């Protein structure tokens, strides 16, 4: 496949006359700010996603702590009602869209191309564009903290008509709508890129059923994103039209239907849950075999169950709406589909245990987080089954029981796996390894803090405490549970703080390790740490499911084969690398200006005049247009690196 592609003009091998002008200058900086603004290297883009995600993870964590301080005692007034509503809205929005999703995207970017033996993603500049648009969305969402209108306060689910102009007149909701819309653009563009990459750029011999499970879950997640985000995109466009132009999609006085929003939102919102958890399951499915030192138990079934979770995930959205009065048949149908989705989820847990069974388990830090994941995800999964029983859910819905449930899935699940993944791939990314003592200490702090915070919330919910409430009365019996939860939250905060301090320390001063310190199994571990810009000196030929493990046990045979391929590659002109480009970044700047115009600038006084709002939007649009034009004119050229490191431009007389 890669050979076939190399023979087409697609990878930039066609002849060009040297006609590049000043505006179509191709940046070549390899260090400094410019190198980051113009990078198209999937590993660097992965780092950009990762750093942004960790930053917003800390922001979301601070929001969470403020929420917990407010609820520490009954009738507290640490925050006002308005501030509290902003906090829980932004905590959820931040953690979902600006922390967990981009952290998953960081792994998709960094790890997935390495796992399939590729040199980059299929569309490197589009990949950079996805990141910049993500960053713009994140900025738009958070501008509210710094301006008078305040941060979005309508909940991460933004139910109408509360979020219509009538009930939320200022720009807070505009920023939320615009921010999410842009994050959708970023996610869909990135996902299409990943899908094309996984389908087209696999190394020879890397059949679909040899794909590492993490890459499989990347593929399923990418499809989920591409198929589910259009639903919220429609909903957000309609809400924005209501807010900006006075349409009546959700405006009740004009005959709008608020229930339409809830359906559109959850048609997106439920697959979103799997968008958050499937990458985590993929990471776990990499870590467990490595540290149990045997292959994943039932690989085809794990892959198939991941895919069926993806399919079924589109058929359960209304279980978020059991209390909206859907009637008996609708409720029963969604109740049963929700139970069905528990089966493939349970299957994964069985197979992870099967992987451990008969292994030689090395209890290293990534493994601690991975095992913690299984335990916590089991609890979250089981409380999820409880919600599937719709009549029981009528009591639990919107109570702290639900808060407990989804934090077990999202922290105990997604976040534990992502923290495990950082530990696991840290040696590959930076050539250094986190100290076992400090790694395990941070694990236990996080694990205990997490449970002390969220386990009592099951009981708070069963005792009738509703969520999204800035205060509760002292006579309701919720004082102790909340106090314990807040203490746990501080411990969790200390744990997460320890984790990051240790990471930063390790980045600068950690123990240096040779490649493959875990004796791992998948292709990426055969690379030097950190991997060179071009990843693979010679595109590997894949012989088995855990190909690096296979290579380690068939060294001479693989080496001989590789020597032959190296000669063939050299005959093709060396390693082909795409040029860097500044235009994805400039397009992002244009979108930022336009989005500020739409969401932050006050409406112009009268029609027919070009006021500040329209002018800002037009300037942003013009920048975007020019950047897109130059982006397409500069072409998809690249240059060649020869194994010795010699560089030669192929747009210049190659």
């Amino acid at each position, binding site marked *: 496949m890669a050979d076939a592609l190399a023979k087409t003009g697609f990878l930039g091998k066609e002849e060009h006359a040297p006609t590049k002008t000043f505006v179509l200058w191709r940046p070549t900086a390899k260090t400094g700010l410019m190198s980051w603004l113009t990078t198209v290297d999937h590993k660097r883009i992965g780092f950009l996603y990762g750093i942004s995600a960790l930053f917003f993870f800390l922001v979301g964590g601070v929001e969470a702590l403020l929420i917990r301080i407010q609820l520490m005692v*009954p*009738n*507290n007034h640490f925050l006002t*009602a308005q501030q*509290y*509503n902003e906090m829980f809205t932004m905590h959820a929005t931040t953690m979902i869209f600006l922390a967990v999703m981009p952290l998953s995207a960081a792994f998709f970017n960094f790890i997935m191309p390495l796992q399939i033996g590729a040199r980059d993603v299929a569309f490197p500049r589009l990949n950079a564009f996805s990141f910049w648009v993500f960053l713009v969305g994140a900025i738009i969402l958070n501008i509210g903290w710094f301006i008078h209108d305040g941060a979005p306060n309508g909940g991460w689910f933004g*139910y109408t*008509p*509360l979020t219509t102009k009538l*009930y939320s007149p200022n720009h807070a909701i505009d920023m939320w709508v615009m921010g999410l819309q842009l994050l959708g653009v970023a996610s869909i563009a990135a996902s299409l890129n990943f899908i094309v990459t996984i389908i087209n750029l696999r190394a020879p011999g890397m059949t679909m059923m040899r794909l590492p499970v993490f890459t499989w879950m990347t593929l399923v997640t990418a499809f989920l994103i591409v198929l589910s985000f259009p639903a919220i995109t429609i909903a957000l466009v309609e809400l924005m039209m209501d807010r900006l132009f006075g349409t009546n999609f959700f405006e009740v006085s004009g005959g709008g239907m*608020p229930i339409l929003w809830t359906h559109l939102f959850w048609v997106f919102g439920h697959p979103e849950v799997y968008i958050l958890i499937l990458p985590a399951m993929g990471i776990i499915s990499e870590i467990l075999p490595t540290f*149990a030192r045997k*292959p*994943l*138990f039932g690989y085809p*079934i794990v892959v198939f169950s991941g895919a069926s979770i993806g399919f079924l995930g589109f058929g359960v959205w209304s279980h978020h709406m059991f209390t*909206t*009065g859907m*009637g*008996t048949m609708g409720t029963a149908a969604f*109740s049963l589909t929700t*139970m069905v989705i528990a*089966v493939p989820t349970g*299957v994964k847990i*069985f197979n992870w*245990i*099967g992987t*451990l069974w*008969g292994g*030689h*388990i090395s*209890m290293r830090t990534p493994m601690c987080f991975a095992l913690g994941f299984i*335990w916590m995800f*089991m609890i979250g999964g089981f409380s999820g*089954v*409880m919600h*599937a*029983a*719709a*009549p*029981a859910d*009528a009591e639990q*819905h*919107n109570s702290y029981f639900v808060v407990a449930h989804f934090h077990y899935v999202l922290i105990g699940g997604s976040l534990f796996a992502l923290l495990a993944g950082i530990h696991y791939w840290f040696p590959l990314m930076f050539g250094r390894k986190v100290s076992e003592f400090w790694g395990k200490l941070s694990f236990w702090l996080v694990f205990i803090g997490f449970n002390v915070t969220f386990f*009592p919330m099951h*009981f708070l*919910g*069963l*005792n*009738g405490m*509703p969520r999204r*409430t*800035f205060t509760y*009365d002292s*006579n*309701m*019996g919720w*004082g*102790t549970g909340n106090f*314990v939860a807040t203490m746990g939250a501080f411990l969790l905060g200390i744990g997460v703080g320890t984790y990051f301090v240790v990471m930063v320390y390790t980045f600068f001063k950690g123990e240096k390790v040779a490649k493959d310190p875990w004796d791992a199994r998948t292709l990426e571990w055969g690379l030097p740490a950190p991997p060179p810009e071009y990843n693979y000196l010679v595109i590997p030929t894949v012989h088995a499911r855990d190909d690096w493990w296979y290579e380690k046990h068939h060294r001479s045979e693989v080496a001989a084969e590789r020597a032959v391929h190296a000669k063939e590659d050299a005959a093709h002109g060396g390693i082909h690398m795409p040029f860097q480009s500044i235009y994805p970044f400039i397009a992002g700047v244009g979108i930022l200006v336009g989005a500020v115009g739409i969401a932050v600038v006050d409406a112009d006084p009268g029609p027919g005049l070009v006021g500040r709002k329209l002018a800002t939007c037009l300037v942003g649009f013009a920048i975007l247009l020019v950047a897109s034009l130059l982006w397409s004119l500069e072409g998809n050229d690249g240059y060649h690196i020869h194994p010795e490191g010699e560089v030669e431009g192929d747009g210049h007389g190659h």
Partner: protein
Amino acid sequence: MRWPILSAKSTALRAKTAIALAGAALLPGCSWIRAFDLNGHQSTIDVEGPVARTQTNLFYVTCWVTLVLFIIVGAVLAYAMVRFRAKTEADEHAVPPPQGHGNPLVEVGLISGAVLALVIIAVPTVKGIFYTYDVPEVQKGEAYQVTATGYQWWFKFEYPAEQIAGHGALTTGNELVIPAGRPIHINLRSMDVMHSFWVPKLAGKVDMIPNRANLLWLEAEHPGYYWGQCAEFCGESHAVMRFRVIALAPSEFNAWLNSQMAPARDAHPGAQPATAEATAQFASVRSFGQNETGATGAFEVSPLDAWRRKQLPDSNEDPALIARGRELFSEKTCSTCHTIRGNPSAVGIVGPELTHVGSRSSIAGGLLDNTPEQLRRWIHNPEAVKPGNKMWVTGYVPNHITLSAGDEVCLVSYLESLK
């Protein structure tokens, strides 16, 4: 003590809470156990009606099934973690174990087991869905109808069966009084944004959605006093949008209906309005802390009896203050938003109907106990009690309403006299 109206009981409660909190911080393992209490006013476990009982019983089914699964799977996982752990460096570098790829028979067996466990949950789930949705067919005839409408941030309750000439259906606010032992069919409506009607001890929640006619049914097994609150985020003061349900024996319910059907009580016809500033009643006027509790403890021990006491006029009410309060109710434009049947100027429909507000056990959307001091606190600065509320935003602020201490005393006297 700066808190004269508080009963000793509530002070004791606060003290207990403080001790519990201090204990939780200082003595781990001692009072932490209270974090697992399930006997609060809004408990979904300690339920008192057939709908909530069906829901709770189903919860127990899911709980036991998943608990058994958790113990089995957890035991296997724990065993694997201990048994197959590499104990030494040498273990870690030993020859790798056999590279097995799985066992289809084990997979099929486990999948079947999981499906079976889900069927155990699915059967009562589907039965429960049909039972809890609407009043069972055989009981439909005896079901009592009410309509509950959500507003930002209070509940309106209407009794379509009780029509009052010239006014329409009997209307109350924030306290739903129902006959015990009889199914209640509640029509759920919303006037603005989405809300959700939830009385945990009687029934799970159903949302109140604009442009959508939802319904819910519940039944109280015996007379009682129940706490409820809005369970769908509905804006700034969502957390303090609360209400009560009071279930009465049929005869007492009918007596209550009769008293409510009557127009507002004119306590002392012909009394001269007080003219001087009357501040005596709030000699101990104090400012309330932001977000301070409105629970005075009066409804903790025997809430239903406390509610019954509220039905009776206060023995030492002052006719002059009441008469002046009635004038102020119009002067301060309260009457443009609130209806008081029997007060011809009070015909507004934006806010809760206040015809018998003095007989309610709570005010401000179930947030504050209905005592003179709490009522004064509410009308003194509504924004501090319930941020963003309409009385403040569309009443006090645009109309520049200011109340002197004397005005407050008179208004409180008037409203409390409306039994």
